[in-house]
């Protein structure tokens, strides 16, 4: 039942991760300031989680890092400023995003969705094929139907395709916006295991996740974002033990009648 990649470490996934630094990032939607100066970093091979309530600005943070919306502050990849670059150039420099709500190319096939991403990064044919094999080995459900249009996949399979598409471009820093959304528990744990392994092999990952328990379980370090500001940061282990974080984001088993926190 368990796919082979779950044990074997994907050789070709190995690549030098980049170091991402974000200084005092600010962004607004019209009059609403969604980011009020966020500073964070992600070292090569590090898995950094960002948790926080709904509407805290987590998605805005990732979109700003990728240059999808105008922002102030600085974004650096390996010490080089990306701030003046367009989104396309930031992607070419090595950033990749798994966007919220998937945003696939609906009418294109699974394979073409993947190839487009490699194409955008200027990969050659052989590296593209190699990369494709990697993604298909990660998500056997996709390998079964490479010619199916993306819109015909189930919701969870579309999520896999969005992740696969980001991995396809050999990113140096992978930005993930709620990648666990809509995935079955079995896939969730496999995906988190995979992320952990990719990071151990050098990829840098910034993981925005509503599911704080899962995110902290797999991350090296984490930031807590509230109302557009980083209010806490530290090693994932410390944050797991932090009573304030625990009561707000982790909690005990879900009980509808139970009062909030402890």
């Amino acid at each position, binding site marked *: 039942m368990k796919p082979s990649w779950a044990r074997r470490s994907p050789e070709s996934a190995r690549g030098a991760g980049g170091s991402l630094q974000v200084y005092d990032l600010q962004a607004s*939607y019209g009059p609403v300031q969604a980011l009020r100066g966020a500073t964070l970093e992600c070292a090569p091979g590090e898995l950094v989680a960002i948790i926080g309530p709904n509407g805290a600005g987590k998605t805005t943070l990732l979109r700003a890092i990728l240059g999808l919306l105008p922002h102030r502050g600085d974004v650096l990849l390996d010490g080089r400023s990306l701030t003046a670059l367009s989104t396309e150039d930031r992607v070419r420099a090595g950033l990749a995003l798994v966007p*919220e709500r998937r945003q696939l190319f609906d009418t294109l096939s699974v394979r073409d969705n993947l190839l487009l991403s490699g194409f955008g990064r200027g990969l050659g044919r052989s590296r593209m094929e190699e990369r494709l094999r990697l993604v298909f080995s990660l998500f056997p459900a996709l390998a079964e139907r490479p010619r199916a249009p993306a819109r015909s996949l*189930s919701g969870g399979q579309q999520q896999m395709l969005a992740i696969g598409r980001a991995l396809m471009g050999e990113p140096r820093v992978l930005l993930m916006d709620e990648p666990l959304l809509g*995935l079955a528990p*079995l896939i*969730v*744990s496999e995906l988190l295991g995979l992320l952990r392994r990719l990071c151990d092999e050098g990829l840098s990952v910034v993981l925005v996740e509503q599911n704080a328990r899962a995110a902290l*379980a797999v991350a090296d370090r984490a930031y807590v974002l509230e109302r557009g500001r980083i209010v806490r940061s530290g090693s994932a282990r410390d944050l797991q033990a932090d009573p304030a974080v625990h009561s707000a984001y982790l909690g005990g088993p879900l009980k*509808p009648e139970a009062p909030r926190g402890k």
Partner: protein
Amino acid sequence: MNRAWFLRGCGLLLLLLLPWILRDRLSLTVPFVIGLHAILALGLALLAGQAGQVSLGQAAFYGIGAYTAALLTVRLGWDPWLALGMAVLVAASLAYVLGAPVMVLRGHYLVLGTLALNVVVEVILRNWQSLTGGANGLSGVPPLHLGPFGALRGTLPYYYLVWGLVLASLWLGHNLLRSRVGRALAAIRASEVAAVSLGIPPVRYKLQLFAYSAGCAAVAGGLYAYELGFVSPSPFGFELSIAILVMGVLGGIHHLPGAVLGAAIVTLLRELLRSLLPQFFRGGASAEYEAVVYGLLLAAAVIGAPTGLWPLLARWTRRPSQESRVQPAQPPLWRLNQVPVDPPEPARDPVVKAQSLTKRFGGLVAVDDLSFTVSPGEIYAIIGPNGAGKTTVLNLITGLLRPNSGSLVLFGSPVHMLPPERIASLGVARTFQTPRVVWDLTVLDNVRLGMHLHLQAGFFTSLLGLNHEEEASSVRQAGVLLERLGLVPHAHEIAANLPFGSLRLLELARALALRPRLLLLDEPASGLSREQRMELARLIQEIRAEGVTVVLVEHDVEMVLQVADRVLVLHQGRRIAEGPPSVVRSHPEVISAYLGPAAAEIATAGPKDLRGNRRAQA
């Protein structure tokens, strides 16, 4: 008094005084024609901007209106007013008959249909000599008469008449957009799937709007004939339909006043070109150059002001903080009137009874010979790996998909042949995995969309704005739901501004507004914070306590185990387990296919809970 009202007053004054300003210097014909074009463009703006259906037939309906009025008065000696009414009726009925087959096909087939209509009408007008007088046209069309004024001769009375009608159509259109029908149109434009799931029949509303816009064009045609006293085929050609489209796009197709602005600009430009171009190009080529200038104008508009000129103008006249579309209601008022929850009569029939349902997509069998029953008042969860067919089952229940074989009975009556809007009207509401809300409507209006089946106002009631009481009460009822889901602070925001989690709650509020007997939830907890999930779990139980049957598709196993009475586990379209949560979660096949042996450690679902249980089993 703000700037917008001041400008409106100035505009009105200018319209009133224009005949005196122009007096003998220029003829009133151009302002009169602008008015006619404005009516045509307004009809198109409603159709294209609101229903998303582009028509290239406005000139044809304009011509049909003119010729019907002319023929009835000249050949049959009808009263001009009666003939005008008949012209509207003929154009609207023709639109209905032409539109019925076209609108059923989703997509942009109306463009093709109306294009053909334009050609056919032009050919008939030119070649059916005995009826229409061919290219020579019909002369001797009598003028309108108006009580004390007697026969209306000259351009002046028609100028006032046509601009009165322009203002009236602006008012009617404005009423329509703020009504139940306007919200339904917005929903159809945003997502037809969501619209039908709320019981909104898209074809009916598109057809009504198409007929209305044809009727407006016919009124303009009639006035044209009566003013001129003569009709000939040339003004009703295809170029006019294109010009009307340019007017709409240039002014801003989503903004009704934009249509008037566009009509004024394009008509004036046309006149200007007509007098200027012949000076540069001799020998009759100027008509072709006119088309080139239109093309350039359209290109410039689309590039420079993609949403049209009106929004630019409106931004200037309005202070940005002022959103005039929705008047902020008083939240405390909402509390006065609780939603009348008539508890549904306890049914004895199973709510859902599916037998041997099969759904294939090409070679893929998404649902494979599946039978299950959901009893009244139950919370029935469906779980399974990604691609197991869970959402397909929901789509089959709501009628969005038809099964290849098998039968489906809801509340004791077979439904497999019913369209989704009829199934919704049985009291079936749903939410979608990716929220399908209407992005450009406010949160409040999105919830009011859910009440579509419980509100009465039809097309004409909405046009005339005779729906105030119902609208006010729907705001109060929506307010109660918003409060229940904690969305009151967002009530007057555009849905596009909401964070993902709140969109889910908004969709749930909209589904509850339908007052469902059966509520289908597709991954309602995904994207919600822990706190919101707890709230949601509580809410689902509360909804059930009110007598609603709930079918829940969800990957948050912890929540499923918490709230569900029975759980169905699907794998590759087939049932691998069904029963109470305690049985299902320890089922070996469920663990190997879905939960995963190691999943419990870090998965979404309650690790402790599952872990503890497995140990207990072992």
